[in-house]
């Protein structure tokens, strides 16, 4: 027994080293022994075994099984229910002490409410401004029905996207996003297509932002100018609370109409929604796009929440002020009201595809949910809240639009356009949204840049020249659209239907069917249902062009 405790280093050698006084490590012979760890007794000086027999045999199995497969192969990795609770795990150092591991990953994860809020916040985009117009295009009843149906459909497809990495066997998919899943099933082609369609949605959003920002900046500037010069807007008079801009366009091609004052004319020349403001924005935003990291802008996402809250408040107030004006004409529009069921409904589905779009980042958003088993419930609640918000805004604006003097057909793709620029509350909304979009625009640009540069050059910031070229293209697209085709309703529905085709309808359904087929569990009803989904996606896109 005593032999085990004899130092490996004999005392002779020690006396030698003690002569070399310059040696900094002057340790006594006892400390030079190799450490001796009693394997079953590492926590306290207890004679009882601290390592249970189950733990020790599990340890032996883990050691052995890890030799049988490659290190990245999860085939023989222990499942969660086999591994002891974190409270029962000790980490020990070779120096003979051990301590318990604290908490674990659960501490850094988010409770359900935070996850639901994050999803709601990310999904709420500028498409909220187009919902009343979309409902008008489809007809009130049909619009409400379509909104509910699209919400459910996109929720189901989102559920499919969320589940897709889980059904991949033998590989650790814990840090995969949906493009990685597509690459697994469809190769490079799949990854590329999911990337391209995701970029379509990003670029569509950026173009819409540019158009809207020009719009809001114009209106804000006009409000301030009119306020300073005490001009009541000659176009609209001070009594109307709602305007019908396109009627005005029919009568005069340019919104900057003649006015008595030459300085006014000068102002309208230099401050024009389509001619000059899109270019002024370049000076503000192009530099912001070239930032290497977007974390500064990520801090401003709370502005989006405030804007939406304010919009809800504004809409409620306007509805109270204007009252309800609803008449149900089922299939034929008349002068003031539109039919309840219209053939232009694909325009609403296109807008809603983008309004309910979160499929490219849902996996990442859900990853930090503390109770992963509640993912589906939380996702459904988030979709419900988003749907209710859109429904609320859409229905209230549509219903309260004063129809006897104006036609419902007047509702603009950006419903704020229906209010004169002299309206204070709406001015606040526009200013808020302008500020919010200015802070989100560089974030979108960063995401687009990372994806494009990452795919082409494997580096998210290859060189200033590459980045500025890309940014010029993006900005140019925005400016051109703002000048020649500032109809955000069309931009949203086309880009929504295009990216929705791949990322919402086709790819999730295909991935699900293929994974079922590989397991040999693809049944006829499921195959038919998912094929129908794909057809719906194609019909959605075609409908945008033909209706």
């Amino acid at each position, binding site marked *: 027994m005593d032999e085990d405790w004899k130092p490996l280093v004999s005392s002779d050698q020690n006396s030698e080293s003690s002569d070399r006084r310059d040696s900094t490590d002057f340790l006594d012979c006892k400390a030079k022994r190799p450490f001796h760890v009693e394997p079953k007794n590492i926590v306290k000086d207890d004679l009882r075994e601290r390592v249970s027999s189950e733990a020790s045999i599990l340890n032996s199995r883990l050691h052995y099984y890890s030799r049988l497969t490659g290190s990245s192969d999860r085939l023989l990795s222990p499942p969660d229910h086999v591994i002891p609770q974190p409270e029962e795990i000790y980490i020990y150092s070779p120096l003979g002490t051990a301590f318990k591991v604290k908490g674990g990953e659960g501490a850094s994860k988010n409770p359900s409410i935070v996850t639901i809020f994050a999803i709601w916040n990310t999904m709420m985009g500028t498409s909220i401004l187009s919902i009343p117009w979309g409902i008008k295009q489809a007809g009130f009843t049909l619009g409400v029905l379509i909104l509910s149906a699209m919400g459910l459909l996109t929720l189901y497809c989102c559920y499919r996207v969320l589940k897709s990495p889980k059904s991949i066997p033998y590989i650790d998919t814990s840090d995969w996003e949906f493009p990685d899943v597509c690459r697994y099933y469809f190769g490079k082609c799949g990854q590329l297509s999911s990337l391209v369609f995701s970029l379509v949605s990003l670029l569509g959003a950026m173009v819409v932002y540019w158009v809207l920002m020009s719009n809001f900046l114009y209106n804000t500037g006009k409000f301030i100018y009119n306020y300073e010069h005490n001009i009541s807007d000659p176009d609209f008079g001070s009594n109307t609370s709602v305007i019908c801009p396109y009627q005005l366009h029919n009568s005069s091609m340019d919104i900057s109409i003649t006015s008595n004052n030459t300085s006014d004319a000068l102002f309208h020349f230099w401050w024009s929604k389509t001619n000059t403001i899109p270019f002024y924005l370049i000076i503000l935003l192009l530099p912001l796009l070239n930032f290497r990291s977007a974390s500064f802008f990520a801090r401003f996402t709370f502005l989006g929440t405030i804007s939406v809250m304010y919009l809800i408040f504004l809409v409620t107030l306007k509805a109270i002020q204007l009252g309800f004006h609803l008449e149900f004409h089922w299939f034929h529009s008349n002068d003031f009201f539109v039919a309840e069921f219209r053939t232009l409904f694909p325009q609403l589905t296109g807008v809603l595809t983008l309004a309910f779009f979160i499929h490219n980042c849902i996996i990442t958003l859900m990853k930090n949910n503390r109770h992963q088993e509640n993912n589906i419930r939380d996702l459904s609640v988030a979709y419900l809240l988003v749907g209710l918000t859109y429904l609320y805004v859409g229905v209230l604006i549509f219903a309260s639009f004063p129809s006897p003097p104006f036609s419902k057909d007047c509702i603009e793709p950006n419903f704020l356009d229906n209010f004169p620029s002299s309206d204070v509350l709406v001015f606040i909304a526009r200013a808020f949204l302008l500020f919010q979009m200015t802070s989100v625009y560089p974030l979108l640009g960063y995401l687009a840049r990372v994806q494009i540069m990452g795919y082409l050059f494997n580096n998210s910031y290859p060189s200033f020249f590459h980045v500025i070229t890309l940014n010029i293209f993006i900005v140019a697209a925005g400016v051109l659209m703002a000048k020649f085709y500032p109809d955000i309703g069309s931009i949203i529905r086309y880009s929504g239907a295009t990216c929705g085709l791949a990322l919402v309808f086709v790819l999730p359904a295909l991935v699900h069917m293929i994974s079922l087929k590989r397991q*040999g569990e693809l049944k006829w009803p499921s195959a038919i249902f998912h094929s129908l989904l794909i057809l719906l996606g194609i019909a959605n896109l075609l409908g945008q062009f033909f209706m």
Partner: protein
Amino acid sequence: MSSTAMKKKVLLMGKSGSGKTSMRSIIFANYIARDTRRLGATIDVEHSHVRFLGNLVLNLWDCGGQDTFMENYFTSQRDNIFRNVEVLIYVFDVESRELEKDMHYYQSCLEAILQNSPDAKVFCLVHKMDLVQEDQRDLIFNERQEDLRRLSRPLSCTCFRTSIWDETLYKAWSSIVYQLIPNVQQLETNLRNFAQIIEADEVLLFERATFLVISHYQCKEQRDAHRFEKISNIIKQFKLSCSKLAASFQSMEVRNSNFAAFIDVFTSNTYVMVIMSDPSIPSAATLINIRNARKHFEKLERVDGPKHSLHMRMR
């Protein structure tokens, strides 16, 4: 055993994904080199070079659940597959949602066995039991056992419940191997005598390819109930390391002031491990004892050997 004797087979069958490849890898210490994509059912017949208990070859087949190409291949090769079978081990995934289908495939395998190798022993493993809640395991296993016994008539099947995450897999395979050793009771009696003569604390007899403990003798109570599996795991890991150097494991001696352990080749099918707690006995003495015992046990095997193979040839 004559080299012209036909290689008898151990069939390891079950639905695709029921855990057969993992099981084989763990029991036989085969490295699984996987593609990142699983390209379909395991097609694994003559690739198995695992020789087991002397003249048995392990064949692994996915049965049911694969695509029609595999199904057709399987049906056309049926007679070839099921001829000369010594043992059928059928693996059921306890989580499978298609019990009817599983039983149907099992029955068709049994029919093929009845036609081609009626004397084969049948074992059923209800696998992945760790996925069942602990309080329900006995209930579910007994239910399955009833069904399987009923379906298997006139053949008799022995059922085990297994999981790679507890000791049940090791014990099940140890029992299977125990039933396949031709003269195991005699081996056990002789082993006990041997142990008592050399004054060993414990003597273990392992099957050569899998290091499953076939039989053991201990003269006093041991603390660790899982020691057999642990030794098995350690030696299999060592074998894996040896095979990387194209070396093969022959024997090992471990000693400290408390004990001395010897692991050595014993007969053509077995390894022996002798544990002496009296450190004063020199190694040489124990090694001589083991060598002499080896000759005796080989004679035992040879005595029964020809009888055994004759018996097989007469089928």
